[in-house]
């Protein structure tokens, strides 16, 4: 086995080993031992990922797609299911982002979750999640991809419902799981559509055969790709399968940072990028992805302006940013979409961590209406939040500026109706600036709230009665709640370390891809996308300059609007809310997506279930099938019973008569 394969396997296996080790011996370790153990496993995984990168770069440029097969599950004519990893620039890029950001979030969690009774369980789950995510990324065939896809959904369910005594958390977990399973079904069905024609499950041979197996615009391929998109939309929280993501904020904040911002929700983007040869043969499916991404980024942006829950603002922002990525990779801007995936992982994880710190200072309270004035008491958190916010809003020279503009640049370069997406993208950028800085201004500026004053006096606020912030219910303080103590970044070196590193990355991450200056990612990812007709495009200098200036201006304008409304002139917000009441109601109620889905899917399903139980099961199943079977058996056995009289001579007579009849039959026939 050569070094690339070895390092790839190690990257995958360290989190699994960590999960098992933490699960088995975590309870016996003193203090924060389980946290250090889990983090150590992740650090080793990250180092292995770096090893994979180094060894892969050592290969010849045309041999940078390496398949590492451990064994065959099945290998017969027309079926080739293997336990195999595909190591290529795309998967190495993804494992670096996932394992790197995960390591930092583990570091953060070591102290953030310190007083939680489920500390050990948390790290076991977190390591399991990273293992699942790496399986998904490194899979070399559809089978392993589906396995990783489902594992990730299960890990997400366990972590959302982590505080299992909270009814809101368990409901949110179930919702996320059900919608994710819907996506799994889409992925599996889509795989069948493609497998039918290519007769192989392996990615590289699928892509190699796709050109002969499918004509451009083939109906089966389009159906398959749209079903793959269903999987991607469910995982990446795109309309209409997005409603689970805001609810998933019921999980602990590090979970929101890791799963619901930086890694899992970007799986859809990865899927489309991985399947790009298929999507390029099915342009109408790719267009569906681009349009849905565009709609999602606008809708999520408008909701983020209206919601008052700190974590939900960031969650809707995540949806919106993933909308950009989906729109990008569906329009052929692969490197740009993945670039944004990386920078987004940095600054969004940072924002969530900072939000976690603020929430801890508020003793679990997440409502923006009750926050304010934390700037003085939490200078480090404030700094991190502003850096993350500037990167998110796309202000130069922060990382989000370059990545977002590159997506829009590549989309604009496609021309035609893509100009509509281009314009929508900049409208979304304006919304991004507004909602990000609305959140920051409301939490950190203005009059300090009592909790902030208490912190300034050197004491961290603790609630007298612990309540669930979502519904105000008094918590069961035994298990399944965040713990009596809170941890803020200002007092915990490990949280500071994680946030500081991410803040640095959020600032410098964009320099990998400055238009016309650096193109690190472009050239690194080139071997994966060598077969793409969209990859090697060279937009004109004028478009680049226009985009950069427009992006910066739009971002600054968004911040300016937010400053005007929420800092300078707070009554504007109230009067605007009154004047635009219908619009505000629409946004606060999240465009009524939950209600629409309830009406269109949940209610009919419940009605159908009730009908099936009361009518179908009673009449058809119980009456016809069960009753019919028992009736037939009972009638048959009573007929047979009648022959069993118990009289010996009667039996003898039957035997004699039988023998005679048989004898005569053969005599006649002979």
């Amino acid at each position, binding site marked *: 086995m050569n070094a690339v394969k070895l390092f790839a396997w190690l990257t995958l296996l360290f989190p699994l080993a960590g999960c098992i080790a933490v699960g088995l011996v975590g309870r016996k370790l003193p203090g924060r031992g389980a946290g250090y153990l889990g983090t150590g496993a992740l650090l080793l995984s990250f180092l292995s990922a770096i090893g994979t990168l180094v060894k892969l770069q050592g290969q010849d440029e045309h041999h940078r797609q390496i398949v590492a097969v451990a064994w065959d599950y099945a290998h017969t004519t027309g079926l080739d299911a293997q336990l195999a990893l595909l190591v290529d620039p795309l998967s190495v890029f993804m494992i670096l982002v996932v394992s790197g950001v995960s390591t930092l979030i583990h570091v953060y969690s070591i102290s953030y979750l310190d007083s939680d009774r489920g500390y050990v369980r948390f790290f076991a789950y977190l390591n399991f999640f990273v293992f699942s995510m790496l399986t998904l990324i490194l899979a070399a065939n559809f089978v392993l991809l589906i396995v990783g896809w489902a594992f990730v959904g299960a890990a997400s369910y366990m972590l959302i419902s982590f505080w299992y005594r909270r009814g809101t958390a368990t409901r949110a977990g179930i919702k996320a799981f059900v919608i994710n399973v819907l996506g799994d079904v889409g992925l599996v069905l889509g795989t069948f559509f493609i497998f039918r024609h290519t007769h192989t499950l392996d990615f590289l041979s699928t892509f190699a055969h796709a050109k002969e197996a499918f004509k451009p615009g083939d109906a089966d391929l389009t159906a398959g790709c749209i079903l793959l998109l269903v999987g991607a939309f469910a995982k990446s929280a795109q309309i209409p399968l997005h409603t689970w993501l805001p609810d998933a904020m019921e999980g602990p904040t590090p979970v929101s940072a890791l799963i619901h911002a930086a890694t899992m929700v970007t799986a859809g983007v990865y899927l489309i990028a991985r399947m790009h040869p298929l999507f390029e043969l099915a342009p109408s499916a790719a267009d569906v992805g681009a349009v849905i991404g565009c709609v999602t980024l606008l809708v999520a942006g408008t909701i983020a302006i209206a919601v008052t829950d700190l974590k939900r603002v960031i969650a809707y922002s995540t949806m919106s940013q993933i909308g950009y990525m989906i729109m990008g990779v569906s329009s052929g801007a692969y490197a740009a979409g993945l670039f944004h995936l990386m920078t987004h992982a940095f600054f969004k994880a940072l924002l969530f961590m900072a939000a976690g710190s603020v929430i801890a200072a508020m003793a679990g309270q997440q409502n923006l209406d009750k926050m304010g004035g934390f700037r003085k008491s939490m200078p480090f958190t404030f700094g991190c939040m502003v850096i993350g916010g500037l990167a998110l809003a796309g202000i130069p020279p922060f990382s989000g500026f370059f990545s977002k503009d590159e997506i829009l640049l590549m989309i604009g370069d496609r021309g035609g109706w893509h100009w509509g997406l281009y314009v929508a993208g900049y409208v979304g950028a304006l919304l991004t600036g507004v909602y990000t800085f609305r959140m920051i201004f409301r939490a950190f500026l203005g009059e300090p709230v009592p909790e902030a004053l208490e912190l300034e006096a050197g004491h961290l606020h603790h609630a007298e009665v612990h309540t669930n912030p979502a519904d105000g219910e008094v918590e069961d303080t035994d298990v399944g709640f965040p713990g009596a103590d809170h941890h803020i970044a200002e007092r915990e070196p490990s949280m500071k370390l994680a946030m500081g590193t991410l803040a640095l990355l959020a600032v410098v991450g964009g320099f990998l891809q400055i238009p016309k200056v650096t193109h690190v990612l472009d050239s690194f990812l080139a071997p994966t996308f060598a077969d793409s007709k969209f990859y090697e495009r060279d937009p004109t200098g004028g478009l680049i300059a226009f985009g950069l200036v427009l992006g910066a201006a739009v971002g600054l304008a968004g911040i300016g609007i937010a400053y005007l409304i929420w800092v300078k002139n707070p009554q504007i917000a109230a009067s605007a809310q009154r004047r635009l009441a219908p619009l505000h109601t629409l946004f606060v109620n999240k465009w009524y997506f939950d209600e629409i889905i309830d009406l269109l899917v949940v209610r009919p399903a419940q009605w159908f279930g009730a009908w099936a139980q009361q009518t179908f099961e009673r009449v058809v199943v119980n009456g016809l099938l069960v009753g019919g079977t028992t009736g037939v058996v009972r009638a048959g056995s009573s007929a047979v019973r009648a022959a*069993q*009289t118990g009289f*010996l*001579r009667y039996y*003898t*007579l039957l035997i*004699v008569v039988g023998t005679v009849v048989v004898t005569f039959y053969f005599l006649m026939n002979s």
Partner: protein
Amino acid sequence: MDIGWFLAVSALIFVIGVSGVLTRRSPLVILLCLELMLNAANLALIAFSRMHGNHDGQIFAIIVMVVAACEVTVGLGVIVAMHRRRLPIDVDELQELQG
């Protein structure tokens, strides 16, 4: 002598056995009639053996006798056991074994 005579005697003995089994109610007599049937078969086997001029039929007859001896042993044992338990020695009375 013609083989037909042997077979006629064999068939006669067999029918006597069958009618005994069918008409009598005492298990002892039924057992005797069973023996008659078996020996009718033996007679036919030996007659055919003589006709063909080899010994296969005779070996069959000896095996049948061994089986018959075993069967009688078991049958008589069952009858003795019935008698000891003061069960009626009548096959029509013993009819619990039914569906």
